[in-house]
């Protein structure tokens, strides 16, 4: 068997990184191959040297410098998560309120004074055709402003004058 095929497995076996069944195979091969034993030894040696070379080259000043730089960048006081959630909820509520359509109160409609209506009505001999009194049109949908609390002034009485063919007969109809 070509020993190059064993290199990666032996490199793992040098630090006990092989699963048990593969480790057993590697052990059997090492027992009969001096070249691979030398390879395993040099792997272990280079790793040991690597570890030694990387031992504590950092000083307390390095740690202190990092700490100081981090603390200098932190805000004065950290807001806990539940406080941030509250602030977020209030902001959302305000935004929703602002987005709602606002109902504007309509301006109060002015009511025109009651008009006087004149109507010409033919007189008897056909007395059955009695005309109905004409009522002035009331403005529709009059919305009274809610803010006005003053008592409304008394409305003028509606007066209807009915003129017949007979100049001596005039009918007045007054409605409250």
């Amino acid at each position, binding site marked *: 068997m070509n020993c190059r095929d064993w290199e*990666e497995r032996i490199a793992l076996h040098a630090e006990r990184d092989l699963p048990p069944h593969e480790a057993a195979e590697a052990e059997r091969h090492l027992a009969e191959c001096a070249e691979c034993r030398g390879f395993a030894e040099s792997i272990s040696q280079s*790793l040991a040297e*690597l570890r030694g070379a990387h031992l504590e080259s950092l000083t307390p000043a390095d740690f202190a410098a990092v700490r100081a730089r981090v603390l200098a960048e932190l805000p004065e006081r950290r807001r806990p998560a539940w406080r941030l959630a509250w602030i977020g909820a209030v902001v959302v509520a305000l935004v929703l309120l602002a987005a709602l359509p606002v109902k504007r109160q309509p301006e109060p409609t002015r009511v025109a004074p009651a008009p006087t209506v004149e109507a010409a009505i033919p007189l008897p001999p056909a007395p059955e055709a009695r005309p109905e009194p004409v009522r002035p049109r009331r403005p529709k949908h009059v919305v009274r402003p809610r803010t006005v609390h003053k008592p409304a002034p008394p409305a003028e009485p509606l007066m209807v004058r009915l003129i017949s063919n007979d100049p001596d007969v005039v009918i007045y109809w007054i409605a409250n």
Partner: protein
Amino acid sequence: MEPLALLLTANGMESPEDPARTVAAAQAGDRAAFERLMRQHERLVLTTALRLLGNREDARDAAQEVFLRLYRNLAKVESARNLAGWLYRVTVNVCHDQRRKRPETASVELAVLPAAGASPQQELTDAERRHALALSLRMLGEKERTALVLRDLEGLSTAEVAQILGSSEMTVRSQISKARVKVKNFVEQYFRRRT
């Protein structure tokens, strides 16, 4: 106890406070508790960053970014137990981002700890060897280097490395074995050329 939890305990030895309580206090906005969290984990973060980046100043920048991310994401840390894993993962990501943004710097910083009683000639050889080892890490690909640093220098298990990197254990094992062989070959070739 799992290795990550052991590591956390070992790093938190200087403070008798329960790490879970420290996390909870930091989450509640306690700035002093956050500083304690940093002290408990700064060795993990800064050492890993230095091993991945090979440069002290870059490692400091990376560690700063990691702790700022921790501060911003404290609410997502479920417990002190998985904090170490979270920090490893973020440190790896931050270092990868940094390496993509910045060109590799030429200098590599490693410990200079001469052996007691070593001759100047011996010290020079040791320093050269350390330099070669540092270079060997830098010639590895990003994934191989990360797997090797986490497994062989940080001492995590293959399963933990796989979890941190979001890979399968089989993939991580393959990366580690290739990285080990490359490091060994590089160091051997380096010294063969020098002699």
